[in-house]
């Protein structure tokens, strides 16, 4: 009996969280236009979420591309189609790996930064102080961070993809001796604007999702040290799961 009760409670809690997140999303969106009037805040946040994540994104992009090149070459060699390495790796990166891995890394680096910043502001009563002064904390603090994340994510995705393709080329052409000309020309003839558009759209959607989860968890964290820690953890977990679910839905939609 208690198991059923707990399950029902869990379900109710889950539904409540979804509802609160959606309402919070609406609240943040309504404050975004006014937050855009203060570009200094937004630039700070794009720097925070994007420029500071560049190191991890570029490094991981390079190695993901290199691994793709390695595995792709090994796999394609079994079918005698090594020349298709450029095509296969570029399509995989542009359409799937680029957006998804970038989103996961973004959630890990920028998402946790956002969540812990906001959580700490909540825990040290800064947000309450703002409300006391009749400054809307969502407009002043949350919306710029959200916009910063949304702007940074697609850019990070594109950078990841570009560096990844460079990594594939390093392994395929430099190391394994795939013909440079056929590598690039095969890639050129099979990757189209639609594929790149698909990757960028995914990057934007994941950006919105991960930024929203990060600011929601941070803003509504329990104002203790433990609460902030748990909010940060939940950010990463929820972002990862939501990213992959959205990835499936978007792929089915865009295919």
């Amino acid at each position, binding site marked *: 009996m208690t198991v059923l009760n707990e399950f029902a409670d869990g379900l109710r809690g889950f539904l409540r969280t979804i509802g609160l997140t959606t309402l919070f999303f609406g609240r943040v969106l309504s404050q975004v236009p006014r937050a855009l009037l203060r570009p200094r805040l937004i630039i700070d946040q794009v720097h925070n979420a994007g420029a500071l994540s560049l190191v991890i994104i570029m490094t991981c992009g390079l190695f993901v591309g290199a691994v793709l090149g390695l595995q792709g070459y090994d796999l394609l060699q079994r079918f005698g189609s090594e020349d298709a390495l450029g095509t296969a790796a570029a399509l995989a990166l542009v359409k799937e790996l680029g957006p998804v891995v970038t989103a996961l890394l973004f959630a890990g680096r920028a998402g946790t930064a956002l969540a812990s910043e906001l959580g700490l502001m909540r825990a040290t009563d800064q947000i309450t102080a703002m409300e006391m002064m009749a400054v809307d904390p969502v407009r002043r603090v949350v919306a710029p961070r959200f916009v910063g994340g949304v702007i940074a994510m697609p850019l990070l995705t594109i950078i990841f993809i570009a560096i990844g393709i460079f990594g594939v080329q390093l392994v395929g052409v430099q190391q394994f001796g795939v013909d440079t000309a056929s590598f690039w020309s095969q890639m*050129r003839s099979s990757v189209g604007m639609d594929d790149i558009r698909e990757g960028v759209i995914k990057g934007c959607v994941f950006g919105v999702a991960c930024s929203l989860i990060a600011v929601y968890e941070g803003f509504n964290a329990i104002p203790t040290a433990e609460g902030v820690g748990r909010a940060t953890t939940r950010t990463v977990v929820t972002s990862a799961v939501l990213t992959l679910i959205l990835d499936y839905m978007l792929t089915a939609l865009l295919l």
Partner: protein
Amino acid sequence: MRATRTVEISTGLFVLLGFAALFFLVTQITDRELAKNGKSYEVTAQFENVGSLKAGAAVSMAGVTVGRVDSISFDQNVYKAVVRMRINTVYDRIPKDSDASIMTSGLLGGQYIGITAGGAEEYLKQGDRIELVQDALVLENLINQLVATFSRRGEGQSNGGPDNASGNGAAQGQQQSQESKK
């Protein structure tokens, strides 16, 4: 407050890097060989059967892509498929009596239009129609022909009607074009 100038510069660099990457992807990765308006002229051809030819398929001569299929529509006056294709203006000396056939790229590849040059003095220009066409190879017709040939051989009767002869010609023409392409 952080050192704002450093923040602004690095953010600017970041956004610039993002757009540079996008630019790199779009120009180096995708294939934009045929410019849209002004550098290509339109030519049509009517087919009985276009098979699985799609808009955007290549139009090639001697294996080199000279244009793209723009659109495929059905004309209810002649009950044929009308294929509009755009050919790069660089290739302005295609004879008027050239032959357009629908060929398959490789064994399982997509279908494209292959143009074989004729011998006329006049050349194709904007709005012209290619008169000589070969339709797509329809597998069912080919199988029917094979079955009919074998059953004919088995019974020792004379060959069938006129559509068999032209059907065989189309099949042989396809095989020849594919062999010459290889």
